[in-house]
């Protein structure tokens, strides 16, 4: 780390720490709610260079940067922030890329308020934390838009083949690091496009596909090969990959099995999983006239769940023309797992929040389409195992609301296709792959795994952290072999 570099020392002395704490935290530039709720344009517009430099000044460049402890991939946060402060934006991007394969993505979708920013020294002084996420996005966007994208240095190819199963955040970050170590990396993707949840799941208004594509192009420049339309375990087995010379495999096939509540009427038409709804709109572009994939553009849309996927779904419904878009969540807003920013954006756009409501039945019309939902009203009781107050039914308090579309966004389970195709693999009762601290399978040393297939349903950044750890683990294993 170059905290002792001359320029950085000078920068620290330029403004007193006390003065740095008096600068107001920057506000993200956003599209107007009334405009954005009808279009796919990205809601957050990013910071200007002036705003970024000003915000970077708020960073105290601590000797012991606690923010870094909050980052699952250990980004050199003061290192990149101080480069922004001195106007070396491309240099800032380079610092980010040392540890993160997808900084433009993380700058947009990471829950910074729960990670790096929650550990910022400014908070201890009663101030708002440095907007690390906004700055990360700024540096990554600046680099991309400048056309001077740095391709990270890769060790010369060592000729060893490693296969990565799944091209979501875990797979991409692992592939990037493996390429840096000098491995011959091939990523296998079941869908027709690279990017996993970044493409099919997170909507354009939060993470434009073009941003993801640039990061993928960069990996290709580093020598990573991609194979689409390939379901490992079906199209080709892990055993066959081994025979083809792949010395290790990293399984990052995600948690692609949507959960349903198993309540009466749940299989009525126009009740679908958030995975299906978002895939139709994001990956298949179903809302465009020239797409062959259909999607029902509901007028009264209810989303069941309170996570980020629920927020993505409800805001997508608005953009598809919903007149009434509702979040139905069984606990109160305080317990909602969604990011504060997503909830705020959804509210600004006119989403209704039916908290402390739980669906118990759906009612259909004569054609089998959903026309109403019956909701049980809840109240908060004693804390449960998760530490959150448990929602309990209020006897007899049942409400019926007309709906023509219901999106179920209550979580996902691990996809069994890959784990079940590897004989002798340690799999938990929940279907997740059991691994050690280096993301190495407990039972088969050449198999590594990470992301939601290990965690069962987590965040982009945790998946990326797993990918990095696995790459290091694979490198260690193959070097010592």
């Amino acid at each position: 780390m170059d905290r002792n570099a001359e320029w950085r020392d000078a920068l620290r002395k330029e403004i007193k720490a006390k003065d740095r704490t008096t600068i107001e935290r920057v506000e993200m530039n956003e599209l107007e709610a009334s405009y954005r709720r009808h279009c796919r344009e990205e809601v957050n517009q990013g910071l200007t260079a002036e705003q970024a430099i000003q915000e970077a000044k708020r960073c105290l460049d601590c000797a012991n940067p606690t923010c870094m402890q909050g980052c699952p991939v250990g980004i050199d946060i003061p290192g990149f922030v101080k480069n922004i402060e001195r106007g070396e934006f491309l240099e800032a991007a380079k610092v980010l890329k040392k540890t993160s394969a997808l900084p433009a993505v993380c700058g947009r979708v990471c829950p910074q308020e729960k990670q790096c920013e929650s550990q910022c020294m400014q908070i201890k002084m009663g101030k708002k934390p440095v907007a690390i996420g906004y700055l990360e996005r700024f540096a990554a966007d600046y680099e991309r838009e400048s056309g001077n994208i740095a391709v990270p240095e890769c060790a010369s190819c060592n000729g060893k083949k490693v296969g990565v199963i799944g091209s979501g955040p875990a797979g991409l970050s692992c592939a990037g690091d493996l390429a840096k170590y000098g491995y011959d990396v091939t990523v296998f993707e079941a869908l027709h496009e690279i990017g996993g949840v970044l493409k099919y799941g997170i909507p354009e208004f939060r993470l434009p596909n073009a941003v993801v594509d640039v990061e993928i192009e960069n990996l290709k420049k580093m020598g990573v090969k991609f194979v689409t339309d390939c379901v490992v375990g079906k199209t080709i087995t892990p055993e066959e990959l081994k025979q083809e010379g792949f010395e290790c495999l990293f399984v990052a096939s995600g948690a692609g099995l949507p959960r349903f509540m198993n309540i009466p009427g749940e299989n009525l038409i126009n009740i679908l999983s958030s995975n299906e709804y978002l895939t139709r709109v994001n990956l298949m572009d179903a809302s465009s006239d020239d797409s062959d994939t259909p999607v029902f553009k509901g007028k009264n849309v209810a989303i069941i769940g309170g996570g980020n996927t629920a927020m993505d779904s409800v805001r997508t419904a608005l953009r598809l023309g919903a007149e009434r878009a509702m979040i139905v969540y069984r606990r109160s807003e305080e317990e909602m797992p969604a990011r504060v920013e997503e909830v705020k954006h959804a509210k600004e756009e006119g989403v209704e929040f039916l908290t402390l409501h739980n669906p118990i039945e759906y009612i259909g019309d004569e054609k089998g389409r959903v026309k109403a939902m019956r909701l049980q009203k809840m109240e908060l009781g004693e804390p449960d195992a998760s530490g959150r107050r448990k929602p309990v039914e209020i006897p007899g308090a049942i409400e019926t609301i007309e709906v023509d579309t219901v999106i179920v966004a209550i979580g996902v389970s691990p996809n069994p296709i890959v784990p079940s195709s590897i004989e002798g693999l340690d799999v938990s009762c929940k279907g997740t792959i059991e691994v050690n601290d280096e993301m190495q399978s407990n039972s088969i040393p050449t198999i590594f795994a990470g992301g939601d297939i290990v965690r069962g349903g987590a965040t982009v950044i945790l998946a990326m952290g797993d990918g990095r750890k696995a790459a290091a683990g694979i490198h260690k294993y193959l070097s010592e072999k």
Partner: protein
Amino acid sequence: MYKIVKKEKFSDLVTRLDIEAPLIARSRKAGHFVIVKLDEKGERIPLTIAGSDMEKGTITLVIQAVGHSSSKLCAMNEGDEIAHVVGPLGKATHIEKFGTVVCACGGVGTAPMLPIAEAMKKAGNRVISVLAARTKDLIILEKQMRAVSDEVIIMTDDGSYGEKGLVTNGVESVINREKVDLCVTIGPAIMMKFVSLLTKKYEVPTVASLNTIMVDGTGMCGACRVTVGGETKFVCVDGPEFDAHQVDFDEMMLRLGAYKEIELQAQNK
């Protein structure tokens, strides 16, 4: 890209395509399906594999032009390329020596039945195939089915070929004549429903291969869910074959129509 190397028109509506897909040709088994996406704007549609040639690295699909994408696929020619073909997906058919197996096929359902009948025969079963269609022109793969069956019964609605009547009449005549250990049925949902009702009456175990709406085909979306024995199942990963007597065919038929109105609107644009 996946090249069409051979095309054969069975009738105005039904086309057979041999497509280059060496990995799938190598790993597929009877009962598996693929997801096909024709071009950049194409939708992902599931199609059951009707056979493969491992040496040539091709798989065979038999498609009936019913909607937008299937019509487009039927109109493609030898040498044309399909953007995406992924598979083999789903669980393979459970093959063992059951005894006497009746293969009840409706229309284009004969195509995915062919590899199943073949495998059943190979496993030592006595295979009786009932091929049913509206009219003579829609009876397909008769020769191939005869080659893998001990007996083939042809049924047409209008009596233009074989016997006049429905697939159920053919199946019932076999059941009335000899002991049937298993019935496998593939065809339109309504036909499978009535085959299932019939065999339930006679207590003949029956397997139906379901073809529902899908997007990814790997368990990710849940568009294909059906109720089997009171439980929700995903056709793509739990199926496509299920105990027919447990399948809620009425719900399945409603769900198959989920996008009919939107498709009609799109066609009339």
